[in-house]
């Protein structure tokens, strides 16, 4: 006879073993299990909602996201800990070549939504528009876009109100938003050290909402009624307001694509879980989630082309 303690332990072990074996035994057919993803925090909300929809379609299939930033996706893909990496910026050459060295083929890139970067000012600020050169002169100290001199006061933009210095707000250098503005609007120059670096885009918008002298940048989905979005002026003098139409067509200058990077050997079809996930993301239902969260959905032609490349429609689940 075993002592009581030992017997209890054995019982627990047995229960654990049953639970561990249960999914393997009870699984009728794919797709079930957990889809692990690592990457962008901008896309965390999207991934979460897509995961919920997927769970409704296929009970038993869960999506798990570790959202520590776009930069965390390529190392995880290369190390093989994940097969799907959401990123709010394209992979850099170095990140791509690390993947190719490990697997011998490039990662598959899937565009899943569009996003735009907006410049916001306090709701009472009368500013009508900004050109790229002006944005560069306001935010950078290098002025590689060709501004004559830096714009540090609102008067330098030709307006009476507000008086005084332009207070600058943005994200810290880790963020993809920070990188996008630097690449697209500062001609890859350097930010002025006076730019306040916040930990999140919502904090940027909140800081601008509190200060009549402030200007800041954030993702399209972070705008609130307490700030005003500034239209951008192109060299021909046309104004571009960010809305779903201009962003989808690419008329609005500061747009970006949100992507999923997938580890898919060439010629092989996707594993069932990944396949189910992408099928959802590139469907009308998945794109409705995109719109709901304040991003911009993809045109039907782009969706169809990507579905074809991923072989989602033939021999499907």
């Amino acid at each position: 006879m075993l002592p009581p303690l030992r017997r209890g332990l054995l019982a627990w072990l047995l229960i654990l073993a049953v639970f561990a074996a249960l999914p393997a035994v009870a699984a009728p057919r794919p797709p079930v299990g957990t889809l692990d993803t690592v990457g962008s925090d901008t896309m965390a909300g999207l991934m979460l909602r897509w995961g919920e929809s997927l769970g409704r379609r296929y009970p038993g299939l869960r999506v798990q996201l570790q959202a520590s930033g776009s930069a965390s996706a390529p190392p995880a893909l290369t190390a093989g800990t994940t097969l799907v990496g959401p990123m709010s910026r394209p992979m850099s050459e170095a990140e791509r070549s690390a993947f190719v060295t490990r697997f011998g083929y490039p990662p598959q890139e899937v565009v899943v939504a569009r996003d735009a970067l907006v410049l916001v000012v306090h709701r009472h600020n009368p500013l009508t528009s900004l050109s790229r050169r002006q944005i560069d002169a306001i935010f950078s100290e290098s002025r590689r876009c060709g501004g004559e001199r830096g714009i540090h006061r609102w008067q330098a933009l030709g307006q009476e109100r507000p008086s005084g210095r332009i207070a600058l707000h943005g994200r810290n250098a880790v963020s993809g938003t920070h990188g996008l503005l630097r690449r697209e609007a500062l001609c890859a120059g350097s930010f002025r050290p006076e730019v306040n670096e916040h930990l999140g885009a919502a904090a940027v918008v909140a800081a601008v909402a509190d200060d009549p002298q402030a200007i800041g940048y954030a993702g399209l989905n972070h705008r609130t009624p307490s700030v005003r979005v500034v239209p951008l002026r192109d060299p021909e003098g046309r104004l571009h307001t960010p809305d779903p139409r201009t962003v989808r067509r690419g008329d609005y200058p500061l747009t970006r694509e949100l992507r999923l990077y997938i580890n898919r050997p060439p010629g092989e079809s996707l594993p069932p879980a990944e396949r189910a996930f992408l099928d959802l993301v590139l469907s009308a239902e998945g794109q409705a989630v995109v719109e709901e969260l304040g991003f911009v959905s993809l045109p039907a032609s782009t969706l169809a082309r990507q579905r074809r490349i991923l072989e989602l429609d033939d021999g499907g689940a």
Partner: protein
Amino acid sequence: MPEASSSPLLRRRLRHGRDRLATALITAGGIGVIAAVMAIGVFLAVEVLPLFWSAGADEPAVDIASLWGPQDYPGLAEPAYRWQPTLPEGDPGPRFNLAPLAWGTLEAAAWSLVIAVPLALGAAAHSALFMSRRLRGYLKPALELMEALPGVVVGFLAGLVLAPWLERHLGLGLTLLWLMPLGVVLGGALWSRLPGTARRRLPMGWAALWLVPWLILLWALAGWLAPLLEAWWFGGDLRGWVTATLGLDYASRNAIIIGMAMGFAVMPTIYALAEDALSGVPGRLAEGALALGATRWQALWRVVLPAAAPGVFSAVMIGAGRAVGETMIVLIASGNTALFNANPLDGLRSMAASIAIELPEAAPGGSHYRLLLLAALLLFLFTFLVNTLAEVVRARLRRRYRRLGDSA
């Protein structure tokens, strides 16, 4: 079994064995802690050193001059101090200058001490010497409980509540700054003129309670006075006046805000240690001074404070160490702008906040990574020195108390 354990010899042996085991465990624990602290220092030093002699081929050279002196950077008209470590590869190249970060760290700590030290020491002196014993029994634990408030919460409140509020009510803030101390002194003067019966109703020991309505009254007065004064002296726009006349720019996340938030965080530490030092002064010293005709102020200033000076000093030192190492408050409440100027109304970026933001992204082994560890090493050395100094001085205080106790 029962027979053996009841034998006195065996019991004694067992007790000795347990004693020896406990001693060994405690010794091992102590050595372990010391070894861990030294290991941290050694690890940081080993990781940092390659920075100075073996920079990688594509890494920019780093030396003392480029870390601390103004540099010529491509794209800038004149030499400047810049901490911009994550510019895109190649052009225009990362800028590693630690001076703005070190400056930001010290500036934040200095302003927090400017705000915390007078308040904490004043509170400590009052509660150690003048406050009624019962009230002190409530207030002291409450103040010490403030220390348990997480830095994240303090930083959040400072950044999202205090900073916008002060920006909107700059005039009120300035008015409070001079009206409050003046009003409190005025309150003291009024109190000493009160007739004896009224003074007995408002005893000195309970001043902390009956001063509260007086402070609310002062606040209301400041609220009424501030717009008038702002219109009268500054043309109704204090922020504009500061910019136009003093040439200072007002950033909403500025060094003063950080000072207030971090001052609030280090105040309980300084208060608790200083209070212990002051109330540890043997009571007969102050009583003797009072009996010889000294006023309460003279007894405090000439007798008790000098006797407790080392303890008060070490309280301030430990507060300074905490302010230098504090991360979350600066990270959240400041704009993290790596500026190198003395304007207290401008933002700052501290070394601790930089480490928190940038270390997860820095490639291990790269210059950026090693520079962040250098910043960590500097923080470690600074807090280590400050805390050691504080402990040495405190040990002297304990000896002094013993001597005072003996000679009495």
